[in-house]
């Protein structure tokens, strides 16, 4: 029985049904795990990449182009690339067997190996979406006046000290933008998960939205539930964005006083 059907009135039935759906908690948990596992690594890597680009190496432009390649690759394609690495007859097993770590191909992506699926999704997402953070950080770095860094260097500040006391504080607005963007995108992670897990073993919020909407054989053809999920994702994104904005503003206010 589909509740609320046919009646033209307000109802919270679908929200209620979503929250009590047996996949809801799992989807929320997996999405949260991915968020926590991906974002910190991504930001550290993006800052390292931006600093490397800032170091004015020879062939700097080439490095910039290479680092930006994942920007142009679709998330489904990325998922498939990483499937070809992690699959039983894939590149990772070939490599591990060649260096003698394993004797026979190990099945990374199976029902019993959910943690390996998480690892594959995390790697794929880090590979795919670190570039966008890097682009934002690079533009933020370029806005930092050279004199500040030179002054720091002149007074004998180590790289870590310059990073901690000059670069990161001045990067804060850029990092905030990147953080909001990446958090929202992390709640929407979909195609990579579909490619790696098939949406059956592990599920995320965006995949549940699609499962409920999907009028095909594997879906439930229920736009109301899909809308409930979509609204929930929007609320989460909104909440996090507000939280980040407030966090930085309250720090600014504290600094002013």
């Amino acid at each position, binding site marked *: 029985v589909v509740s609320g059907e046919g009646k033209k009135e307000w109802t919270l039935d679908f929200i209620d049904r979503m929250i009590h759906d047996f996949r809801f908690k799992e989807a929320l948990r997996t999405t949260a795990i991915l968020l926590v596992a991906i974002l910190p690594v991504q930001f550290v890597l993006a800052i390292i990449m931006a600093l*490397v680009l800032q170091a004015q190496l020879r062939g700097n432009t080439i490095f910039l182009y290479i680092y930006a390649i994942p920007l142009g690759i679709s998330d489904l394609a990325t998922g498939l*690339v990483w499937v070809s690495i992690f699959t039983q007859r894939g590149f990772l097993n070939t490599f591990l067997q060649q260096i003698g770590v394993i004797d026979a191909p190990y099945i990374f992506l199976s029902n019993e190996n959910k943690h390996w699926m998480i690892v594959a999704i995390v790697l794929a997402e880090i590979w795919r979406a670190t570039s966008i953070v890097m682009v934002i950080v690079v533009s933020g770095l370029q806005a930092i006046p050279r004199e500040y860094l030179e002054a720091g260097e002149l007074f004998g500040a180590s790289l870590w000290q310059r990073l901690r006391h000059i670069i990161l504080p001045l990067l804060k607005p850029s990092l905030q933008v990147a953080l909001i963007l990446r958090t929202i995108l992390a709640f929407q992670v979909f195609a990579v998960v579909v490619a790696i897990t098939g949406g059956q073993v592990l599920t995320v919020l965006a995949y549940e939205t699609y499962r409920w909407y999907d009028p095909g054989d594997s879906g439930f053809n229920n736009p109301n539930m899909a809308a409930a999920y979509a609204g929930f994702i929007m609320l989460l994104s909104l909440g996090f964005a507000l939280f980040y904005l407030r966090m930085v503003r309250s720090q600014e206010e504290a600094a002013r006083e």
Partner: protein
Amino acid sequence: MNNQRVLDAVQRRAIRQRQLRRAGVYALAILIAVWILLPIWLIGTMAFSTRDDVYGYPKQAAPIPFSTDTMQFFIDNTMRAWHSALWRSRAW
């Protein structure tokens, strides 16, 4: 004279340290580039391998023997769909 020699040594050490650090940054830059390019290389290998090699195990790290069969198959079978998909994806 002695002071000059000490200064030279200090200078040399500073320069060497600088060069070492520079080499480290280059190594890091190349490492990150490899991290980005490796998956693309691997999927490219799959795309240009023979049919047997694509399904075979162990996988090879380079498309040898080189084959355009897979690509040909892809282009032949998707050209029509590709054309209409591109048309539908237009922004106007």
